[in-house]
């Protein structure tokens, strides 16, 4: 089985996600990048799960997917909140508090 390839793919996805989180100024883009990371995690879990032939990975992945959905829900709600208060969702303008 191509476990290693799957893992590599996962790693790549992870890196892209991280890059997105760090580089993107747009809140929605950041959310999506985080989704990427989570999916890379799922990929890992499934790959390992099938390699080890244990069911735990799959379960874990399911949980992750479910929780991720909830997270995104909350996230988008917040983005809306911001937009309503500031008419923008650019993260680098969120710096009222610093120091």
């Amino acid at each position: 089985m191509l476990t290693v390839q799957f893992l590599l793919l996962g790693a790549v996805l992870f890196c892209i996600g991280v890059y997105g989180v760090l580089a993107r100024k747009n809140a929605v883009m950041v959310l999506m990048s985080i989704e990427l990371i989570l999916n890379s995690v799922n990929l890992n879990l499934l790959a390992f799960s099938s390699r080890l032939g244990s069911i735990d990975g799959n379960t874990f992945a399911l949980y992750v997917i479910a929780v991720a959905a909830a997270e995104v829900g909350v996230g988008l709600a917040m983005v809306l909140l911001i937009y309503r208060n500031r008419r923008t969702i650019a993260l680098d303008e969120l710096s009222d508090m610093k120091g």
Partner: protein
Amino acid sequence: MLAAETSQAMSHSAGWFLEHAWVIPIIPAVAFALIIFFGKRLPMKGSELGVASMVASLVLSLGAAWQWIQKINDASEGGVAHLTRAAGEKTPFVGPIIREWTWWQSGGFEFGIGQHIDGLALTLLVVVAFISTLVQIYSLEYLKGDRRYTHFFAALTLFSAGMLSMVLAPNMVQLILGWEIMGLCSFMLIGHWWEDQANARAALKAFFTVRVGDMGLLIGTGALFFAANNWTQANLGVSGFNISGLSAWAMSGEASKSVLTWGAVALFIACIGKSGQFPLHTWLPDAMAGPTPVSSLLHSSTMVVAGVFLVARLYPVFWEGLRIGDTDINFIVLIGGVTIVIAALLAFVQSDIKKVLAYSTVSQLGYMMMGLGAGAWLPAVFHIFTHAFFKACLFLAAGSVSHSGSHHSFDMKKDMGGLAKKMPITATTWIISTLALAGVFPLAGFFSKDEIIDNVGHNGYQAFMIVGLGGAFLTAAYMTRATYLTFFGEARGAAAGEHHDHGHATDHGHDAHDDHGHDAHAAHGAHDSHDDHGAHGPHESPKLITIPLVILAFLALTAGFTNAVPFGASWERFKKYVEPSPAFVMPEPVKASGPGEAIVILDSTRASEGEEGEAKSGCSYQAPAEGEVCYFPAVSHAKFKWSKAALSLAIVALGLVSSWMFCVQYYTRRNRRLVGLTQRNSVLRGGYTFLANKYYLDALYEKVIVRAVAHPIARGAYWFNQNVIDGIVNGAGKISRRTAGWVYRNIDQRVVDGAVNGSGAAARGTGGALRPVQSGKVNQYGALLFAAAAIGALVLVIVNT
């Protein structure tokens, strides 16, 4: 508490007074407390307590002295079997009566308090008690109406308590106690009129200068204590503070030389400070700012001899430590000699009568020190004895003059002159004491001072014998000068009945002072008679002042006969009763509880014969045998020779006469205004008639003495004294203040404190530096987060693979 009582062995032999000498200082101490607390309510404002206490302690001292004499006589008549032969002739050995109680103990060491009575102690006891009594009586009148009358008597009484307790101290700790209390009283009494900052400064200077010396006292005591303690505990069962213990240890030959030397030097520094020896003498003349009775008690006859007393008291320590035995110049002689000359020269250029006496005191103390240093123990102690009388008398006379004659001025040139007629008693007493001081036969000074000079030479310090003779000459000269200026010649200033206004200004408003900063209106405070006599000029002082003068003058006449060497050994009572014998004695087996008394065993074999005067035997020349100790080195005594005496007498006479001539000439010529023609003529005529070669004398005096001595040297010395030595003493203060300021500003505030505050600032600074990290930008937060994670992971991955 009452542990460590001396063995009963001696208790029965000694009488009650000797047994209970320790009461003597307690009486004035109690009196002091009473005066402080109740003095002001008493009819005589507490002075009566002071006088009474002094009389009481005088009686006790005399009683003790009497019993001591009995004891010695018994011993010498073989009444007591304590006979030993040492240093030639048969001398009775009578151990000191030591009683010591544990005062406090710490770390296994006992510190005692009690009494150590022997000839020396008794001499000082009598002198101190006696002079104190007279001075206090004198002060009753002299300070009448002073605003701090009570304080004054309290301080005087406390001083006596301190001095007495120091005199009979059996150990160094008690000695230090008394020593410091005297210093305190000196401070309080010099600064008695502290409203005038000058007096306050003088007081401060006196205390501080002496305190510098006391450093040596602490160090020396400590060093000797630890060095000696084991030995004394083992051999005598007393602590290393114990005076007899220290003496025996020093003589035992087992003492480490280096410690002995350092200890002796340290102690001697204290003596220099206390006894106003060169170069720490400058405080003494300033101390004259105090009331005259104070000067006459503390600063001439008693307190200032404390240093001399300490040397005499621990003589073996100095003997061994500073090698007094050998004839190479030793420290003490040197200091003493220098002091004699310096001070005597300075006395020439004073116009303040008390300053003259002050310098004279310094130089006389120099004699005592020189004597001790040269091994002339007895003459030195005897000089303490005689000097006390005539010097006290001189001061009191000076006080009497200012009190009733010169309207509270002490300036001989401005306010005195020709007082002899107005104040006969004062003048007579003054002149007697002057002659005594000058050392005219057969007055007291002769027997003591001449002996010192003689023995100094005899012990191989020829050079210093000459110094002594020179000193005698100078003494005679400057005292004559003072006498002339005060009592003869034309009356000047206040003596002539003139009134200085400041004298009066002081009557109104208590605080102001006449600018001499002297007793002036001390007496002024409430005592109105001054205005009266101020009005009708100088007059003889009242009884309370003259009686002490007369008594003292009488003693100045006669005291010398107590040890009139010229008339043969039978006259040497003072020697017999005071000088300890250099005997080897066997201390009785010691009780752990306390000091054992030294019981003498007859030991004729080791007592080596020696020619009178050549005694190179006795202990200090050979170490004592096992189990034997020795409390005093064998000192040798010069045989009295009239030839030598005649020489010194001649020198003194020369001093008197030439100085007299000089005064007449000098002051007549310089200030015609002052000296009436008639008198000048009479004197000149007298000189013309009696001295064929008067011009020669006159010329000699003018050219040699005056030009050579009086002006350049004396003034030079004075300049040196004021600007260099005194400058150093005062400068030390300034310098330390400056350094202090610098250290405080730069080290303390900048470095030490700065470091602390700096670290605080640094913390805040770093805090500030870190704040940008908290930029508020989510992405940067994220970046930081992941970076940290990545780096951490990377490092650890590398480490773990």
